[in-house]
């Protein structure tokens, strides 16, 4: 099949043989940058990170959060879909029956091991109830110990101000029986 070919010119004339013209052209560009930046900081791209933050798009995948229904209860129905689709196998769910029959199932414990998570967003796509989202926009996730990276259900769920339609406040969410701090991670090796 025909395609156009372009030979790269590596010619080297007198202009290159003398060192000065090449350096002069380079100096022209660096000086242009220098004088534009030293006076007015026109082209400077760096930002002062802790004070200013880089604008992120809405699709930016950051820290997870568990969304809530209007009546204050978690949207998640513990269907284990995100747990099976997660490539890093870092989500652990234990489902439980809720005393109120109108609520089918809810996650007694919903833990994400953020150290293992690869932030691929497959769990958000797989969730049939839009219960888990990654749009909290939290850029810096730095904590002091490994255990604090095992986000439990209560850490992940949204903050929620109860309004007139609220039926269940946070107190109604029964705690899992033994809330160990260090959950075994996905490979069954207990985190230290």
């Amino acid at each position, binding site marked *: 099949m025909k395609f156009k070919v372009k030979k790269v010119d590596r010619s080297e004339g007198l202009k290159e043989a003398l060192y000065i013209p090449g350096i002069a052209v380079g100096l022209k560009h*660096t000086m242009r940058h220098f004088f534009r930046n030293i006076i007015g900081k026109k082209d400077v791209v760096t930002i002062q990170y802790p004070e200013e933050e880089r604008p992120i798009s809405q699709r930016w995948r950051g820290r997870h959060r568990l969304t809530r229904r209007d009546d204050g209860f978690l949207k998640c129905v513990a269907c284990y879909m995100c747990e099976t689709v997660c490539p890093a196998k870092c989500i652990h769910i234990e489902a439980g029956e809720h005393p109120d029959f109108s609520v089918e199932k809810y996650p007694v414990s919903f833990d994400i091991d953020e150290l293992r998570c690869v932030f691929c967003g497959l769990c958000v796509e797989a969730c049939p109830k839009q219960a888990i989202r990654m749009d909290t926009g939290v850029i810096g996730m730095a904590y002091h110990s490994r255990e604090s990276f095992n986000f439990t259900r209560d850490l992940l769920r949204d903050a929620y101000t109860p309004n007139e339609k609220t039926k269940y406040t946070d107190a109604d969410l029964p705690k899992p029986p033994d809330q160990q701090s260090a959950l075994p991670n996905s490979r069954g090796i207990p985190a230290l």
Partner: protein
Amino acid sequence: MQLVLEFLALPFVQDVLKILFILLLFAMPLGTFMTLMERKWSAAVQDRIGPNRANIGSYRGRGLLHIAADALKSIFKEDLIPKGADKFLYTIAPFFSFMSAVAVFAIIPIAGPIGDFKFQVTDVQPGLLFIFAITSLGVYGAVLAGASSNSKFALFGGTRASAQMISYEVFLGLSLMGLFMVYGSTQVSIIVEGQGEHWFGLIPKWGVFTQPLGFVVFFTALIAETKRAPFDAPEGESEIVAGYFVEYSGMRWSSFMLAEYIAIVGVAALITTLFFGGYQVPWLYHWESAPQWLVTLLQFSKFTSFTLILCWFQIQIRWTVPKFRFDQTMALGWKKLLPVALLNTVVTAIIIVALA
């Protein structure tokens, strides 16, 4: 009061004061200032902001506190000697390079003479030959550091530094032959005096205009002498990590660094003196009635501003030009700079004979 004036008139005291003034109030501050300015100016070239984080309380300045921060850091950093290093040579190597960087200021005049008082530490008759002697001593700093620190990369850096500095001293000397012929002597004050006249009252007789080729070769040789910009194969940080001072840390390492930055200021001051008229302010002779203190102030500020401009130019070159490979540095030196320097000497001689 009378006692004090008498004390000041003593020649010995004047020399000590001159040394203290030129070293402590001119060379060292400018050198340390250059450590910060290199990072700030290179940031400007590369569309960054440069260091501005060091702060006392909330005062951050525009990064000026980084000079103090670097100094304190290097004092408190651990200063270790690698296993198997030759302790004695390892410890004295930094002093050689520091000494050769500082000694350059001995013969540089920073302002015009008032009566018989010269703003110059010494005005020895073979002025510039003293410079060549001192810079050749600087080779010991790099070579001893490289050879004594028991590391292959340092060994590479040391051998490269020795070959490069020794061969570039030759072009250093040769490129100034033309200058000596034009101004008739190697004494620095006579050269600077010579640069005071003007052709047709308009163009000042600076070294740059009388010796353009000599200036180019001299400037290149001096950059190679201080192992900076395109000639920093001895500290080739991409292939031999950090060259001869790879095993240094703490105060010893920072003395190498400080030596390098003071050498920048030294190079800039030397070139200003020899090629940009030192303290000679152009067209100042028209204004006879100027008071003496104003003339000295003008001369000193002209000298300092030109030194700063040349420091800036060296740093600008550093961040523009890629690095030579080591054998290309030597090829450039011996195959290109040597003929150019000799040609320059011959041409200057012919012109002088023709004009005279």
